[in-house]
């Protein structure tokens, strides 16, 4: 079987996903088209050799809608022969794009693909894409659907994670992200967003809050208590009768940040790399998708990684680093408990609690972050994983070459 290699993995900085965020003034197709141009520039890429641009997007509507992969290739001025599409697997969209690209290369059917994602949460807010899972009463009743925040609180309740536990995790995420920024650990893969005249719009992740303390975190109000009170707790407890109440521990401070951003990963075969003078940085060796109970919804990463390891014949100790998307603090704590992974191996440069989670773009960002860190520490294997709406989980194994 052909191996799928990562030649490059870049991203925009993450802008605060509100009207006062720096990237709010930049349209999503521009965010991703600029990244494509950066890929072309950095790799002296003959774009006619790229066969497809697969982009993940969680709300693929409006200005993010209609096959934004193709649209971005057009705006980037790439060769007419480059196809493009977009895919939606909620929060797993970006990593799904990477996995699909790798699988198509591994199958031998294609040689060079760009995978990644884009999400301007400030311009196309969550929910803009509608969706029967989130708004159709029949589906919601059938699936005992609750808000993800209530699911995260349910995980904390069942796992016995206190407010201090989740806040402590959030604080460490902030501290690690700040340290990584100070030490320039993101610089190699981070492409500044510039306006049409070339002036910098944003050149660093702006959501990080270096001054965070346990006290500031403790002062935040639980975000999902009201939804719980309105009935979502009852819906969740109907599935989990071992608890009488749900402990609402998640706040804006220990949940992932709402941000704007994009990611792009250049994936191809060894032959394509040789032809184009591209140096493989890592191999995508295995991938896994699972789905679990939909009400608790966010417990997919553990089972996804277990499946990934089983497929690749590795044990958990063979993995040097993990990127576990910090959708909520309890998601990562649950992952650590499920797989008995030491926290030192996980999200060493912080995660979405500090940096933000631009839904469809995140998976591509995690690939870049973990390869950079494997190289920096001269380690071999890394796993990226995300929890996904509907109960799904996705994972990807990357190995340095």
């Amino acid at each position: 079987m052909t191996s799928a290699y990562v030649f490059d993995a870049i991203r925009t900085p993450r802008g605060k996903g509100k009207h006062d965020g720096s990237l709010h003034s930049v349209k999503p197709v521009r965010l991703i088209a600029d990244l494509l141009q950066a890929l072309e520039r950095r790799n002296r890429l003959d774009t006619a050799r790229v066969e497809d641009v697969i982009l993940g997007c969680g709300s693929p509507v409006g200005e993010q809608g209609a096959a934004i992969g193709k649209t971005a290739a057009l705006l980037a001025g790439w060769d007419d022969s480059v196809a493009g599409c977009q895919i939606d697997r909620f929060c797993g969209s970006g990593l799904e794009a990477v996995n699909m690209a790798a699988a198509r290369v591994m199958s031998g059917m294609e040689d060079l693909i760009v995978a990644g994602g884009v999400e301007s949460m400030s311009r196309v807010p969550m929910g803009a894409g509608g969706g029967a899972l989130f708004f159709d009463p029949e589906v919601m009743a059938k699936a005992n659907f609750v808000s993800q925040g209530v699911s995260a609180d349910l995980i904390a309740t069942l796992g016995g994670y206190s407010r201090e536990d989740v806040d402590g995790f959030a604080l460490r995420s902030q501290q690690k992200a700040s340290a990584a920024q100070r030490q320039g650990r993101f610089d190699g893969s981070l492409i500044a967003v510039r306006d049409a005249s070339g002036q910098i719009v944003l050149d660093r992740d702006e959501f990080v809050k270096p001054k965070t303390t346990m006290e500031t975190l403790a002062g935040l109000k639980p975000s999902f208590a009201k939804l719980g009170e309105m009935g979502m707790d009852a819906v969740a407890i109907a599935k989990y009768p071992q608890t009488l109440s749900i402990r609402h521990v998640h706040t804006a401070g220990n949940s992932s940040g709402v941000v704007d951003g994009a990611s792009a990963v250049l994936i191809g075969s060894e032959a394509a790399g040789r032809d184009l003078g591209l140096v493989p940085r890592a191999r995508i060796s295995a991938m896994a998708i699972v789905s679990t109970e939909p009400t608790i919804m966010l417990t997919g990463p553990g089972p996804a990684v277990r499946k990934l390891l089983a497929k690749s014949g590795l044990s958990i100790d063979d993995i040097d680093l993990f990127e576990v998307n910090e959708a909520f603090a309890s998601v990562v704590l649950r992952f650590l408990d499920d797989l008995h992974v030491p926290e030192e191996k996980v999200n060493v440069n912080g995660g979405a609690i500090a940096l933000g989670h631009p839904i469809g773009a995140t998976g591509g960002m995690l690939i870049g972050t973990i390869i950079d860190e494997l190289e920096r520490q001269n380690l071999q294997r890394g796993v990226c994983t995300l929890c996904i709406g509907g109960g799904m989980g996705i994972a990807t194994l990357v190995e340095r070459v």
Partner: protein
Amino acid sequence: MENANYETLEGGTVVITIDMAGAPLNVMNDAFGDMLDTVLARLEAERDSITGVIITSGKASFVAGGDVNKILALTQGGAEAGFAFVQALKARLRRIESFGRPVVASINGSALGGGLELALACHHRIAIDDAKSQIGFPEVGLGILPAAGGVVRTVRMLGLMKALPLLTEGRRLAPQDALQQGLVDELASSREDMLAKAKAWIATNPSPRQPWEVKGYSIPGGNMFAPENIGAMSVFPSMIFKKTRGLLPAAERILAVASESTQVGFDAAMLIESRTFAELLMTPVTENLIRTMFLQMNEITAGESRPKGFEKQKVRKVGILGAGMMGRGIAYSCACAGIDVVLKDISLVSAEAGKAYSRDLLDKAVKRGRKTKEDREAILARIQPTILMEDLSDCDLVIEAVFEDVPLKKGIVREVEAVLKTGTIVATNTSTLPISLLAEASANPTNFVGLHFFSPVDKMHIVEIICGKGTSEETLARVYNFVQQIKKTPIVVHDSRGFFTSRVFSVFADEGDRLLKDGVDPAIIENAARDAGMPVGPLAVQDEVMMDMLLRSYKTNRVLDQELGDSYSETYAVCAELCELMCDCGRAGRGAGAGFYDYLPDDGKQLWPGLTEMFGGDKAMDYADVRDRMMYRMVVEAARCLQENVVTSERDGNIGSILAFGFPSYSGGVFQFIRSMGIDAFLARCETLASAYGQRFSPPEELAERLARSNTALIAINP
């Protein structure tokens, strides 16, 4: 014209006065459909000479909605019959809507369900401003949805957000509120005013069209995915779930149909509405609700369990002995119903405190706008606190509500009877003590009866009437009317230990305690009870009632058992055992600040961790078994009551179980629970439970036969 009067006025306006022959109300059934067909045929034939149409009713109300007997017949006819019935009704209303002349609904009284749907198919709605009239969609309470276009038209007229509460909550609005909500367009002061306004509207609107027929129309607020709607759409299902626990599907399905109706054209929306009607029609819940909550409730209102042949009499003056929690509550309910009350206690301070309780409740009612200050003063003026037995001498009815103690109650009965005029009924309010035993103290046991009120009396709308051995039919008839006079629902039972409601409900607590003792996780026990539809779990209920009280009643019953050679107290011996254990731990319940639960300073509560230490809490047991042990225990106990003639009609048992202790309404009550499931399936499940958990789950042997016999008491279906 049969069932309607068709009158053409000068100027070409036709007034249709619907007046279904031989019925107190206009309800929608096959005859109603035929009437509409005849009316429509004539209107359409005379269209050229018609300038407008006014639809009104010859009854006190406008149209009261679908004929429930017809709906019940449709449940037997199958989904196709249900679909066809509402499609035909829709087609008729559509002809009204597209008649090409202004059609005004002149709502002279209540317009409910199908009646409101008829009005919505008209171009304009004028209601007489009578605060007693009710306008709304009660369908959800019967497990169905408005299917003559009610969902579709309300959403298209008002928008999803305004329509949903009206459709899913079944609220009945007074005309003023209906106007404010947009369900009616104008109010009128009288029938004449209403007709004048209708004529005036017709004159100025010669060719009106429904908003949704106008080009460029869009639904107010947009479709279900509009940004304005998605916030609410994402929580509505869970809000409904919190109320129904997924056991009453109608509200959930109404929400789904209303939402989906915004995504499609008018005709498709109408089809979706009809299909969902047929779907809901065929759920057992719908039949359960119709049989119990509507038909059996109507039978109770009509006095089916009241002995015939006794003239209805009103109680003018009632005496209440004991101004404690129960006495003061009964006093309040009586005074509110316009009955003079003498409230006697040992000290004037206590009697006055009993009256002050009414003042507190009335102050709250005034604050909320439910009563006026004048109402409050009038009601309070009816309550006379006293310490003198003689003040009760001219009462029509005396209710003793003193402490649950046989010698005390007997003494009071003797004392009060000495001052009463002849013919006065003496009732004892008790939840435990045998009526016939207390009646021994009465000089005239024919006039002696048990009235089991529930706490808090002002909120609990049921009274269990207990006939002692000597209670006469006339006495029963009179107290039956009294219970209705104070706007409560009477059920009639015979004197037996625990009567009906206490006996059945106490085994719920007992089985919860047995599960706990078996080592089942207390959270699972509580949640399983609530998942089955009980309002609170068995442990929470014991905390609320207070376990020292339960223990006292158990001890009383044990003494009575010894005296009477009975074994009643054994039915809740484990409950008593655990109550004693908890009381010994200083945890008698919420009132003591601690019980099965810890009560937190922020008003929250959590299960006491000591329970798992004491009982384990890690025993694996099938969740369905946990749930069914509690539910079947009650139902089997109820079946024994039927067998022993404690209750003689399923009706009283069904309604009693729902109103007295919150047995889930979706099931239709303790007996409909069995019928809905099927007697054979019920017996099979009982057998499984009995072999796994004990003989207490074995129903009386002759259950099937007994149910078959009492089946004659079930409502015959008259389509």
